[in-house]
């Protein structure tokens, strides 16, 4: 024996390779066989042999992969690497469909662009925790592969993929456990190439006992290499009734040199290992050499990178080793986890470190680590990971450090009161913490308070916390500087968002600066957060700008796999709103549905208010005023829950009043109006609502009077949308008064405001634009549509052409 087990030559399993060749001539090959059957080895041998596939995209599914998005991202990455598209690819245009669907489209388009032969290998698909949820999209991917692209999927058990179409078309082939089994002849060959002298009878016995199971044969060959009496080994093995894997693992381990045994047992708890980490866990140098030798010997050790620095054990092998370690050296297990945790923390791999600290049973230590790093993890969008780590703590054990972490979770889910309660506990605890941790905790607490104030719509509270964070940090270490940049970006995000809610002019600048800073310091999640809020803040801009900014934010979120998370919801919501203003109701509805899915885990009053507003708008656009009223009423309820109250929320009140009027209840609207204080009643949005009430009361002259101050610019408005609205209302009032010319002029002014870049169009074009979609500039247009008796855009086009309600110079 050398340092590692004798090199286990992969024998040329020509028949099997030929079978895979035949299989791979079809579109899709499924390799379905239990652990240790040799699925991976077959694929590697097939790919590595001369004349193998030119381009190969291998996507191994990580162990216990719970996150479907991570799976799709890995798939996209794998395809891009194989096609050299990484980096060069433009971010694809944002799509309203559910993320997984968009991802599959993107993978398919990358594959189509790859042109030419390419084999996509998805390994260990069974590791996906909920393959059922993925089945539909995966089926779509596999049944729509572009010409020249083949897929090989390996799994331990059959998955419910609906591939009957492929099967009927003769484009599906399956390789199963019985195909992978070593024949007696192959067993003989394996022994021969490894230099093991065993009689015919001995080889037959070995084959019979292992039933041709690849993992069993491998273990046996590693044990047999250099064995003084191979015949006796096989005889004893065959006489044993112990399971094949267990018997052979124990034998194989015992046959290893002490340092190899020690390394295998002491590193098996890790999901991946390198030489340095293995040296630390074994307490001896030289581990890298052993790992390389084990890898060369095909002894269940595979390298994970081309440089061969990281390795992992075959899953079955690792599972068996872990059991063996727990049985042989149970007392060493916690210490091994602790040491691994120490290494991971030193190398900045916090999540691995916390997992190992938990596995070591060091719950207070794990709580401390989690509290110290939760701020940074949150900035990277790892909220789900944080929640999973929190849930791994044993119930009942109370760790005051976790209050801070729980507050972050609450905040992410929009449970603002719970977040405040946990924050109070965290603050009390921080005061008792040792000085070195105190500052870090205080900074995290201040950042949380800042986010909490923002989510409550409390501008003054935001400004107060920003001032606290703005005070220069005492230390000047690298960590301090990093913390300083993080905090500055967080402060800009929250300040800009709060300003946007208050319709303050600095909002867009602060959010834009926040996005740039976040990109500079390598915090893409924070960048997406800023861009999503910037998209929302842009609703005061021309619709084309709003639409573009939101689409950019969504494309970036999609790229990182956050396209269906609360972080991007403001942009999804705002894009839907802009599309409604442009008359694209169906597309708006699809984006709104995607926004609904994204906010499923976030029930905060701020985002819920936005969702009710947009939902109400869509109903109003389609003339469903009763449903619109319900949505606006729900939004109004939420508005009162926010502190401040945010200025932009005046829109809710305005739309609520207008909808009541449209439903023929101007009296109720007037009563509500009377209850408003002077400041709010004087806002442009409420003036517009007054105009709607007047129109409902057949008082067009009153309506004109109500909007006059808005048109003159003498009352505050939250954005130019309000002025566009006022122009349209004036147009409607003029029409009611029989002044078609003034009505057209008002509509033209509305158009000029809404789309400044379109004003150079000819009068005729403006006229047709007006009657089609450009005049659908607000929810008030819902009332125009309702008067026309139509509900969607195409029929509006037709009706509008015949009626020309606001067209220039065309008498009705």
């Amino acid at each position: 024996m050398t340092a590692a087990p004798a090199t286990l030559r992969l024998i040329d399993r020509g028949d099997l390779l030929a079978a895979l060749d035949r299989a791979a001539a079809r579109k899709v090959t499924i390799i379905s066989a239990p652990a240790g059957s040799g699925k991976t080895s077959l694929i590697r041998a097939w790919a590595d042999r001369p004349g193998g596939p030119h381009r190969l995209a291998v996507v191994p599914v990580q162990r216990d992969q719970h996150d479907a998005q991570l799976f799709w991202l890995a798939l996209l990455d794998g395809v891009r690497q194989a096609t050299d598209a990484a980096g060069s690819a433009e971010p694809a245009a944002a799509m309203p469909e559910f993320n997984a669907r968009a991802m599959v489209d993107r993978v398919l388009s990358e594959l189509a662009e790859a042109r030419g032969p390419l084999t996509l290998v998805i390994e260990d698909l069974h590791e996906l925790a909920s393959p059922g949820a993925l089945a539909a999209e995966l089926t779509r991917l596999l049944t729509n592969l572009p010409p020249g692209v083949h897929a090989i999927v390996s799994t331990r058990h059959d998955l419910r993929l609906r591939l009957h179409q492929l099967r009927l078309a003769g484009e599906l082939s399956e390789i199963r456990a019985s195909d992978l089994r070593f024949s007696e002849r192959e067993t003989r060959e394996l022994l021969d190439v490894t230099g093991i002298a065993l009689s015919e009878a001995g080889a037959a016995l070995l084959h019979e006992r292992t039933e041709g199971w690849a993992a069993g044969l491998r273990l046996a060959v590693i044990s047999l290499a250099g064995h003084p009496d191979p015949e006796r080994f096989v005889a004893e093995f065959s006489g044993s009734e112990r399971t094949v894997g267990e018997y052979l693992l124990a034998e194989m381990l015992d046959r290893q040199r002490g340092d190899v045994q020690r390394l295998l047992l002491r590193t098996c708890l890790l999901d991946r290992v390198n030489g340095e980490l293995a040296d630390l866990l074994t307490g001896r140098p030289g581990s890298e050499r052993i790992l390389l030798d084990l890898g060369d010997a095909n002894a269940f050790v595979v390298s994970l990178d081309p440089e061969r620095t990281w390795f992992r054990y075959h899953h079955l092998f690792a599972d068996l080793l872990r059991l063996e370690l727990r049985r042989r050296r149970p007392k060493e297990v916690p210490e091994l986890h602790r040491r691994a945790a120490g290494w991971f923390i030193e190398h900045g791999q916090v999540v691995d470190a916390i997992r190992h600290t938990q596995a070591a049973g060091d719950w207070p230590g794990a709580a401390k680590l989690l509290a110290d790093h939760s701020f940074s993890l949150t900035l990277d969008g790892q909220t789900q990971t944080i929640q999973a780590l929190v849930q791994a703590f044993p119930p009942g054990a109370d760790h005051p450090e976790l209050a801070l972490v729980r507050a972050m979770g609450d905040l992410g889910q929009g449970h603002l009161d719970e977040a405040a309660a946990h924050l109070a506990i965290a603050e009390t605890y921080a005061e008792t913490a040792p000085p070195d941790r105190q500052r870090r905790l205080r900074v995290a607490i201040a950042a949380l308070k800042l986010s909490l104030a923002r989510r409550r719509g409390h501008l003054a509270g935001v400004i107060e916390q920003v001032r606290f964070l703005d005070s220069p940090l005492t230390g000047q270490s690298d960590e301090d500087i990093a913390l300083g940049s993080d905090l500055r970006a967080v402060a800009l995000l929250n300040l800009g968002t709060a300003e946007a809610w208050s319709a303050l002019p600095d909002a867009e600048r602060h959010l834009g600066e926040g996005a740039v800073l976040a990109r500079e310091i390598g915090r893409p999640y924070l960048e997406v957060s800023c861009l999503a809020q910037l998209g929302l803040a842009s609703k005061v801009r021309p619709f084309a700008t709003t639409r573009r900014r939101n689409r950019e934010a969504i494309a970036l979120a999609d790229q990182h796999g956050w396209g269906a998370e609360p972080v991007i919801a403001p942009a999804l919501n705002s894009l839907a709103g802009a599309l409604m203003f442009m008359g694209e109701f169906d597309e708006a509805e699809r984006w709104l549905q995607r926004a609904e899915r994204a906010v499923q885990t976030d029930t905060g009053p701020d985002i819920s208010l936005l969702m009710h507003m947009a939902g109400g708008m869509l109903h109003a656009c389609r003339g469903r005023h009763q449903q619109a009223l319900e949505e606006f009423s729900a939004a109004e309820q939420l508005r009162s829950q926010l502190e401040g109250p945010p200025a932009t929320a005046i829109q809710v009140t305005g739309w609520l009043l207008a909808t009541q009027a449209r439903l023929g209840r101007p009296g109720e609207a007037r009563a509500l109006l009377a209850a408003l204080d002077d400041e709010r009643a004087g806002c442009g949005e409420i003036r517009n609502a007054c105009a709607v009430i007047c129109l409902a009361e057949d008082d067009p002259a009153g309506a004109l009077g109500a909007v006059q101050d808005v048109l003159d610019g003498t009352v505050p408005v939250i954005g130019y949308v309000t002025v566009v609205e006022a122009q349209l209302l004036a147009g409607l009032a003029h029409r009611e008064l029989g002044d078609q010319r003034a009505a057209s002029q008002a509509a033209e002014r509305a158009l000029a405001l809404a789309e400044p870049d379109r004003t150079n169009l000819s009068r005729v074009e403006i006229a047709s634009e007006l009657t089609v979609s450009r005049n659908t500039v607000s929810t008030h247009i819902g009332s125009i549509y309702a008067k026309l008796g139509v509900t969607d855009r195409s029929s509006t086009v037709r009706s509008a052409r015949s009626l020309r309600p606001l067209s220039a110079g065309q008498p009705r």
Partner: protein
Amino acid sequence: MDPGPARYTIRIDGHLGATMLSAFPAMVPRRHGGHTVLTGVLDRSALYGMLAEIDALGLNLLEVRRRTPQPESPPPRDSRSPSRR
């Protein structure tokens, strides 16, 4: 439709030694001919976890049987016998 915790017997090909048995601490092992029969009370998620573990360890599952008698229905014959190797 979770039937709740029930007593299960799970039959595996071969004799499980100390190492393999340590993977199933909640189950009582018994040898039966060339097989190992594991008995214990499991709820649904524990049962599926255990089946996954058997799968992961390369063991040959022969049969799963639910033992809790149901008052109003005949004894369930919930058995699986996948083929492996």
